[in-house]
């Protein structure tokens, strides 16, 4: 059996078109993704907000100072307030060096430039100040004894939201594409499964007839056929993972290697099995079977966000059962669960479903392949 397996692996590796589509094509695609989508990673991170503060010379200087202090209390890397004269501020706004101008005085004002992306943040900033100012004025009027306590309470920023950690990685929609690409590569293991199955069945190829007429026990032929396709497709996925992690840096497997390898191992079992099932179905030509696998892999990958981001989410909203049976969605879910969310439950669900379907398909393939006499050849 080992000899058949070794030869089968050699045959699969030397089959150029097979290797191109199942290994080189995903590598090329991942490189293209890296240079096209990779550039957009972090593109949606918040830009620095720079605004000017213009003092009203006629206003109460203490009040002006309090307003400036309030604005500067936001002064972080992403929010900067620069005191300027009116002319300087207008010039800076005109040249897009700042996004807005805060005017002091009795009636505070905000002037926004043409870029209105951060209007809400700037206007909220002013609004909060005005509300607080109004509230303090009310307290002075109605409960002057509580002024100190109110001022202290306002000084303390309360946090009422909790940040969900994504394992320290930021969630980016471009990850969809990379995970879907890995899923597609796993699914391409079907090609090997199909080729190897066609090659050992008397009713689908002359080689199969020669093997079936020989003295190798059937179970050995079937096992060798499955193992060789499974191992090759698993190795191909490993190559892709290594390339995307170590060379391109688009995914970061880190300590999650075990979980990732396990899901790929099961995913390639699934794809090899479905390839074997397609290989055993009828005496259709290899080209037709190839076409079926391409269509199946692409449809599953499409539904797992390979071409358009958001498809999987839409399916999840309207027909979630599709995501439970789509191997592409199960693989990407598992990757998300491990590399982004640390969601063990979802990972386990994906792993279990892939294993279940993989074994089911394998059983169907073996049942069909163990047939040794055919109605026609």
């Amino acid at each position: 059996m080992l000899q058949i397996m070794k030869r089968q692996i050699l045959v699969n590796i030397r089959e150029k078109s097979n290797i191109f589509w199942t290994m080189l094509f995903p590598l090329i695609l991942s490189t293209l993704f890296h240079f096209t989508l990779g550039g957009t990673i972090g593109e949606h991170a918040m830009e620095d907000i720079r605004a000017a503060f213009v003092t009203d010379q006629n206003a109460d200087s203490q009040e002006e100072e309090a307003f400036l202090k309030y604005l500067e209390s936001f002064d972080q890397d992403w929010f900067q307030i620069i005191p300027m004269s009116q002319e300087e501020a207008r010039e800076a706004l005109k040249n897009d060096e700042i996004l807005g101008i805060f005017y002091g005085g009795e009636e505070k004002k905000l002037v926004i430039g043409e870029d209105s992306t951060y209007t809400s943040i700037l206007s909220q900033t002013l609004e909060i100040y005005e509300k607080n100012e109004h509230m303090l004025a009310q307290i002075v009027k109605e409960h002057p004894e509580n002024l100190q306590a109110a001022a202290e309470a306002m000084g303390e920023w309360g946090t009422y939201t909790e940040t969900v950690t994504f394992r320290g990685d930021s969630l980016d929609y471009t990850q969809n594409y990379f995970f879907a690409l890995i899923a597609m590569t796993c699914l391409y293991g079907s090609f090997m499964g199909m080729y190897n199955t066609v090659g050992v069945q008397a009713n689908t190829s002359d080689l199969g007839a020669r093997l079936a007429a020989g003295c190798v026990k059937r179970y050995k032929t079937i096992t060798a056929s499955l193992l060789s396709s499974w191992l090759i497709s698993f190795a191909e996925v490993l190559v892709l993972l290594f390339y995307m992690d170590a060379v391109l840096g688009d995914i970061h497997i880190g300590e999650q290697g075990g979980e990732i390898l396990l899901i790929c191992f099961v995913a390639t079992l699934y794809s090899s099995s479905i390839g074997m099932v397609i290989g055993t179905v009828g005496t259709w030509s290899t080209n037709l079977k190839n076409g079926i696998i391409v269509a199946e892999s692409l449809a599953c990958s499409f539904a797992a966000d390979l071409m358009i981001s958001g498809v999987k989410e839409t399916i999840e909203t309207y027909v979630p059962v599709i995501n439970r049976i789509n191997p592409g969605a199960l693989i990407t879910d598992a990757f998300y669960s491990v590399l982004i969310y640390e969601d063990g439950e979802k990972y386990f669900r994906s792993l279990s479903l892939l294993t279940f379907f993989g074994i089911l398909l394998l059983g169907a393939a073996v049942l069909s392949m163990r047939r040794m006499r055919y109605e026609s050849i």
Partner: protein
Amino acid sequence: MSMIEIRNLVKRYKDTVALDHLNLDIEEGEIFGLLGPNGSGKTTVINCLLALLKFDKGSIKIFGQEMEPDSYEIKRQIGIVMQNVAVFHELTVYENIDYFCGLYVPDKRERKKLVEEAIAFTGLEGYEKKRPKKLSGGLLRRLNIACGIAHKPRLIILDEPTVAVDPQSRNKILEGICQMNRQGSTIIYTSHYMEEVEQICSRIAILDKGRCLALGTKEELKNMIKTGEKVHVEGIHLTPEQLEVICHMPQVFSTVYEDADLTLRFQGTGSHLLGLLHYMEEENLTCGRCFSELPTLNDVFLEITGKELRD
């Protein structure tokens, strides 16, 4: 006891009867020819023999045992050369032979010797490292044969191994088959080329529409038919009276005269060409070419079925 016993074998493909109560006995040491036109059932017999095809009725025994899909010990002693070339195009000539031989012979050292012998036997020296795609049609056929016979089987089944092969390779293949037989292998050879079957087979079964029409040595088959001699005269112009005389010559039982070409069939033994030439001399008849030939297997097939073997 025969090496192969086929009894009452019936195989149907839906409404088509591919094998119709076929009975055959093949003895050890012979080169047994299965001759018949395309679709006569030759390959179906082979596939049934190898337990690849289900059949509707009958039994097959090889080496005295019922042949079943899991008769691995029987299969171990059989070498099969498929009608279509069945090799791995991704492996070299050597690797292909080694692989198929390895299915029967696990020992590496023994296998190496056998593979080298098969390469020498089929004249593939110098091509060991070539991939099948680089080989000519003839060499590819030889590789196909080498893969089937490398493990030196007791029974070798060759299903039309010379289809689309150049004359040089064909001769090499036929010589090789005779040599394998001399070395002790029993051969089953299917073909629709009567010349090949006539050349190498010790016994022949003529199949048509799944039935065995005739079985015996080539001499026995030829003796089964009326034709003893065929005379062809090309480029001869006969009057109806002259043709009538020729038709009534002794032992003539069939006359075909078309486009100045005359074919006469004589029954019984002896040469009848001289008698015809005498008559032509008397009548001052000239011709382009005139020759006589003994009946072929095609004549046997023609007389039995009423159609040419290659129709």
